[in-house]
């Protein structure tokens, strides 16, 4: 029952998000607004109810499955991709790498500048699976 309640709540937040986006003509998708609203709700309540956590971890544990149908859509675009395969593949590949490297670099630098003390304290207290060495120096 917990799972059912949880999934119902997730759908309700998505629905509210979709409606709000359309009513207010916002440039973001409904589920993203729904996520923000759920996050704010959890902040106000001060804890995540069992039903919501159960449904959330069930959905997120196989998040990549949900992208499969869109990926199969590639077969519809084979011709277009084939006709411009070079710019598509190279731009996509290198842009993705550049984005990851640059974002990681910027995040690394700025977290050292702005929050080194509190992060280290926080990290050593509940650092379960991260913090392999480098942060303890």
């Amino acid at each position, binding site marked *: 029952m917990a799972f059912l309640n949880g999934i119902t709540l997730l759908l309700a937040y998505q629905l509210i998000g979709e409606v709000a986006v359309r009513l207010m003509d916002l440039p*973001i998708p409904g589920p993203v607004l729904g996520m923000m609203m759920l996050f704010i709700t959890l902040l106000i309540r001060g804890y995540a109810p069992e039903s919501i956590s159960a449904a959330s971890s069930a*959905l997120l544990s196989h*998040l990549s499955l949900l992208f499969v149908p869109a990926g199969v859509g590639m077969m519809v*675009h084979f011709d277009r991709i084939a006709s411009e395969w070079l710019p598509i593949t190279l731009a996509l590949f290198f842009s993705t790498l550049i984005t990851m490297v640059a974002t990681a670099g910027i995040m690394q630098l700025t977290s050292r500048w702005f929050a080194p003390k509190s992060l280290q304290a926080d990290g050593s207290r509940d650092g379960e699976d991260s913090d392999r060495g480098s942060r303890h120096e």
Partner: protein
Amino acid sequence: MNEPVITDIWVYLSASPLLGLTITLLAYGLAYRLYLQANSSPFANPVLVSVAMLILLLMVTGTRYSEYFEGARFVHFLLGPATVALAVPLYEQLARLKALWLPVTISLICGVVIAAGSSIGLAWLLGGSTEIQMSLAPKSATAPVAMGISETIGGIPSLTAVLVVITGITGAVTGTRLFELMRISDDSVKGIAIGVAAHGIGTARAFQVSNQMGAFSGLAMALSAFATALIVPWLVDLTGI
């Protein structure tokens, strides 16, 4: 005698959503098992493998994508509630998030601009058409957002959906290795980077590394969806394409 029966069954199955849905789950189940067998090697990425298997199967049987999608859309639909569900891991990382809000904000904005700018720029340098450049621009945002943006800036939404998935796979396959090369061990840094560049598929990969990396990746994915929607159309206007 036998043949018409089989054709009848096929006619029934191809008209019903049951087949598309079942083969999606079967293919993913198989791909996931292969992935575990390969010691969770990112190269055996389950999305990559199951997409390849399904395309092959549809082509061999001469099934159209639209027929397949009749069933597969039930899986596709769950992207919505899954996006909402990201609020939970995010909430669980609240303490870290509070400590890191400024670096996270700066990295996110820079990351979104770099993702869009570098894909437009590289595609343009390599002689890609404007349509392709615009379809690539929002590729690092999660699928529904990217498709909406693609449409407003003159790309092809359904092509963008495909590019989004390939981008996600690229990020998931290369990410952990790349961070190793960069000697980054902080899971919040890795999570932000993979979430900005490779949205939900990167986030799925991040959750396999650790909950913290997954939560930050989910956060980066959600916030960069916002940021991409606000920044990319404006960036395209600015460059005057």
